């Protein structure tokens, strides 16, 4: 029995492969491989060992910033989306304008506004300099995290607004008829259903967030992009670091898309 299952699985895989591997694709793959090999042979890669340690640190920082800002941004997006659907005007109005303003201005400008603009005001106040936050406010990464979190929250908040509004009325009415409290209704019915609805956009938003992370290099946070820029400035090698950087981002995007697809497949997509 197990052998038959394995055999049919192998046949399925073989069928999929032959469907993908049409004759012209073999040619394209060959051309691609030739390009990669010639790039490896004829381009300069002798700088790689010198910068490998720095690159790993930079890569770690990129992934760390991506993970932290996405999670925090999503947690912020939930109340931002919710108050726009059900909240009183004094909450929904600021949430609406928060989304509009953040989505209407470039992230680079927001980042520089926080780092150079607010950052230049802080030292003028003695009570800020005396507070426990001051050691953090003097570094660059808190500004990067705050600004990327705000950006993610605004874009995803708009998605969550639609997701909360899209949950069928009947579901909420049924929950209320069961005598659920407002908080329980939110926790058990409204939030999970809205999250299912928002899940397909979440992958796209997270890739978008990954593509925003190199901006933090402009405020002196050393992520993987900053490492590549440094290689360019110190060795005057232009293409190789940038090409490698593009490949690294492609790989991270691939992993993200794959992970989200797995996550989506695990969650039953039955919506009321």
């Amino acid at each position, binding site marked *: 029995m197990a052998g038959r299952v394995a055999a049919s699985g192998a046949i399925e895989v073989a069928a999929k492969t032959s469907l993908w591997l*049409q004759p*012209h*694709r073999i*040619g*394209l793959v060959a051309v691609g491989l030739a390009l990669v090999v010639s790039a490896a042979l004829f381009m300069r890669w002798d700088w790689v060992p010198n910068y490998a340690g720095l690159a790993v640190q930079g890569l770690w920082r990129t992934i760390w910033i991506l993970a932290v800002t996405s999670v925090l941004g999503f947690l912020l997006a939930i109340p931002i989306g919710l108050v726009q659907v059900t909240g009183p005007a004094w909450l929904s109005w600021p949430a609406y304008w928060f989304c*509009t*303003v953040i*989505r*209407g*201005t*470039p*992230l*680079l*400008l*927001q980042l*520089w*506004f926080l780092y*150079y*603009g*607010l*950052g*230049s*005001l802080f030292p*003028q*106040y003695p*009570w800020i300099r005396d507070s426990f936050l001051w050691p953090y406010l003097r570094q660059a990464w808190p500004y990067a995290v705050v600004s990327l979190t705000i950006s993610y929250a605004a874009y995803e908040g708009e998605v969550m607004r639609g997701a909360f509004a899209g949950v069928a009325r009947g579901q909420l009415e049924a929950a209320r008829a069961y005598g659920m409290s407002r908080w329980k209704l939110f926790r058990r019915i409204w939030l999970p259903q809205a999250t299912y609805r928002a899940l397909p956009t979440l992958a796209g938003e997270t*890739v978008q967030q*990954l*593509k*925003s*992370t*190199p*901006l933090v290099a*402009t405020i002196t946070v050393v992520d993987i*992009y900053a490492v590549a820029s440094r290689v360019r400035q110190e060795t005057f090698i*232009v*293409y190789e670091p*940038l*090409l490698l*950087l*593009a490949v690294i*981002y*492609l790989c991270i*995007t*691939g992993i993200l898309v794959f992970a989200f697809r797995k996550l989506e497949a695990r969650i039953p997509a039955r919506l009321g």
Partner: protein
Amino acid sequence: MHSGNEPIDAIILQLQANIFDLLALSPPGWGGNLMRGLFHSILIAVGAFGIGILLGIGGAFGKLYGGPVLRDLLELYTTVMRAVPELVLILLLYFAGTDLINRVLELLGYQRIDINGLVAGICVLGIVQGAYSTEVIRGAIQSIPQGQIEAARAYGMSASLMLRRITLPAMLPFAIPGLANLWLIATKDTALLAIVGFNELTQETRTAASTTKAYFTFFLAAGVLYLTLTLVSNVIIARIERWSRRGQPVGGH
């Protein structure tokens, strides 16, 4: 008065006195520079968006009706362009593009030229936009009711006539929301050109701010300009959308 508020009051007073001088349109103020930057930003966004739409129409037709090799290559183009940060692509295409053009010129026996930053920026952002609009336009063409295309074929229309009279006008209502979104992205992506040193709004703002040390004021002013651009765009987009849906039944296709 509470003593802790004194520095704040002093700054507010100073801001009120200075803000209009700083943002004045004539030379001692920097307002003129900001407006010039805004003009450049809009110029780049319009150019990039236009190139993006042309590439998108070509890419969408290639993906839908092209041969297997063309289809795979276009898939590669859209995947890579949408997976790699715009900043990296801008640097890569900017360096590679100018280098390539100069090498071709040298091969042909001409002198090296300095590529205009404006033109380079427009082309690079246009190529990136093209990947996104390929997907938008492909989806829109696929949403056209099949009968309309078949009817056009039955009338014996040539491919180009069908494109001009049927496919492009019929796909427009489906494509406009996506394209509008791309326009908003284009206006914001122009800020990235500040990193390669082009004088668009963000770069002008940074210059003004670092010269006068009034970072807060200038970044806030630039934010207001960008926001105004977005809000005005939204109003125009809503009009275009209504226009493109004229004659269609309300509330459904």
